[in-house]
């Protein structure tokens, strides 16, 4: 089970709204039976040109992105298809947190289950993060899941919140399936009561 407590890292800015999971990983790369090796296809159509070379100006392969574990995006990140390949691809690329103004529901749930932390910030902090990147390419963010605080280097912290149970699982390493399995008695009782 993935764990997460606190992370300080440089960040990559993808200043777009409604980034859908078809962009995060296009469908033609979903013909797989494992979770591994998807990082090559992360944002494939934005990132690689016809010849398979990195596109000029796409932030993922910029010098300052190297080693960054936080991705910053706009509104409604992860909308569209429910494919969990999207968080798998982000994770195998090296991201551990996504900072955005909002997230799509299913993406948010999928991300948390894999130890990728979705952090919602308000418009003001979002603007500050972008401005800071513009003036200081090596600026960093700290995501503290225990305190539910996100801090831009040299600025005050802002609160964020994630689903409390998912947070508990990530902080303590508790496994969700294990939790469900421990309720066998209740499941059986439910089935018996409804003759299902």
């Amino acid at each position: 089970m993935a764990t997460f407590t606190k992370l300080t890292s440089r960040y990559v800015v993808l200043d777009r709204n409604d980034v859908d999971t078809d962009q995060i990983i296009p469908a033609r790369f979903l013909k797989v039976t494992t979770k591994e090796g998807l990082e090559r296809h992360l944002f494939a159509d934005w990132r690689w040109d016809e010849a398979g070379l990195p596109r000029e100006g796409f932030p993922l392969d910029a010098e300052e992105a190297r080693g960054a574990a936080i991705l910053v995006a706009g509104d409604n990140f992860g909308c569209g298809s429910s494919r969990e390949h999207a968080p798998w691809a982000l994770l195998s690329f090296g991201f551990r947190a996504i900072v955005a103004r909002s997230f799509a529901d299913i993406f948010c749930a999928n991300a948390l289950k894999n130890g990728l932390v979705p952090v919602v910030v308000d418009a003001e902090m979002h603007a500050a993060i972008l401005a800071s990147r513009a003036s200081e390419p090596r600026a960093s963010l700290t995501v503290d899941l225990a305190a539910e605080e996100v801090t831009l280097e040299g600025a005050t912290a802002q609160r964020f919140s994630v689903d409390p149970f998912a947070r508990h699982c990530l902080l303590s390493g508790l496994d969700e399936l294990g939790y469900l399995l421990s309720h066998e008695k209740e499941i059986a009782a439910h089935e018996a009561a409804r003759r299902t």
Partner: protein
Amino acid sequence: MNAAKAAKTESEDLHPSSKTMLDRVFSEHLVAQGPGAPPMLYVDLHLLHEVTSPQAFAGLRARGLRVRRPDRTVATMDHSIPTNRASFPTSTAGPVTLANLTLDDAARAQLRQLEDNCREFGVELHALGGEHQGIVHVIGPELGLTQPGMTIVCGDSHTSTHGAFGALAFGIGTSEVENVLATQCLLATKPRAMEIRVDGFLGRGVTAKDLVLAIIAEIGVGGGTGHVLEFTGDAVRSLDMEARMTVCNMSIEAGARAGMIAPDDVTFQYLARRERAPKGAAWDEALHRWRALPSDPEARFDRRVQIDASRIEPMITYGTHPGMGIGVTGVVPDASMLSSAEQAAHARALEYMGLRPGERLLGKKIDVVFIGSCTNSRIADLRAAARVLDGRRVAAGVRTLIVPGSMAVKRQAEAEGLDRIFEDAGAEWRNPGCSMCIAMNGDQLRPGEWSVSTSNRNFEGRQGKGGRTFLASPLTAAAAAVTGCITDVRGLL
């Protein structure tokens, strides 16, 4: 203040008649509610396909777990399979198998994995060549597996389709697929309820697809986030089941967790003749339960939206998300009408689509027409397309794919002679599958091509890298096939 609040809560308890359909279905499936944990919800029906299940079965195997209720689990092949008839063996070559199909290695490995997983874990599989194979959201309802009041999940966001029956149906990720396989349960925070009331009636040539595109254009692609949409009102009541499925199918495109429509006689009539629906005394008992499901008249919704059906014209999208929709006679909006946050996205979308603000879409040349997908591949959709194509020819240079949602839809269409209408018109009549909706199987747009598609997503590259999608109804798509450009179908009816 406190007293007033307490009194209100009490009166709610005393009058349990202020519940939404969502309240009822949710509470009926509550298995446990541990301290500090979200509600644990029982799943009545779990649908599987080849793309989002392999890693879940691998997880079960790694832990030595079994599928808890194989009898509540049904799998099909739909996403990565070929639909062009040339990829299938000739009818004299015996039954279709993964060995005699033309298929790339990755797809073959993924489909074989599904076969192996279903065999090993005892799960019912509708494999290629089987009489019930088809798109997962088409076969569930058509077999009668989808029933009112159920909880239904699938590793696929368009699971919302099944909400047309008054089921609570939503898409899940692969981790949750594993959880449900192992325990028949998942953790689910209760969504909020939003009522979308559609008054009046849809005009001639205006379909359920146009209605749902208009709703998404109205509330936005994030407008339903955290909510289950319940569609009510005369316009919704007057839709048949297939049209209701089209509406619920695209709830997810408004960001909603699910869409629901209260079951009524239309629902019960649809179900009464289905293979897997309850029979005899069980049917009577089920009917009794189903009739009690609809939201109470005084039910409290967290949000309400009202739409006038009579004002909706055939819709088409101009951009790269389903909320960028306009009436077909309209013009591409100017960014100045949008909030500043939306302006950049709007400009990007228009650049990708090769369109200008203020441009008319009518008369815009297109290259491909795709009629299919879990949104619009049922028999009524094909009949609508046939109505336009009958006695006409597809315009020169327009590739037109018509892909039925399931083997059953295909058989029905062929029994009605629709396949001949399509082929006589110059369209390709395919085998069932997701096809160009997701473009995993080689059915795809070439870079720069424009298509009018009846599917549900117009994201960049969704139908093939560099491809540009206009979403519309089967009527509008068929009209575009005939004229070779974006057309107001009302002139052809």
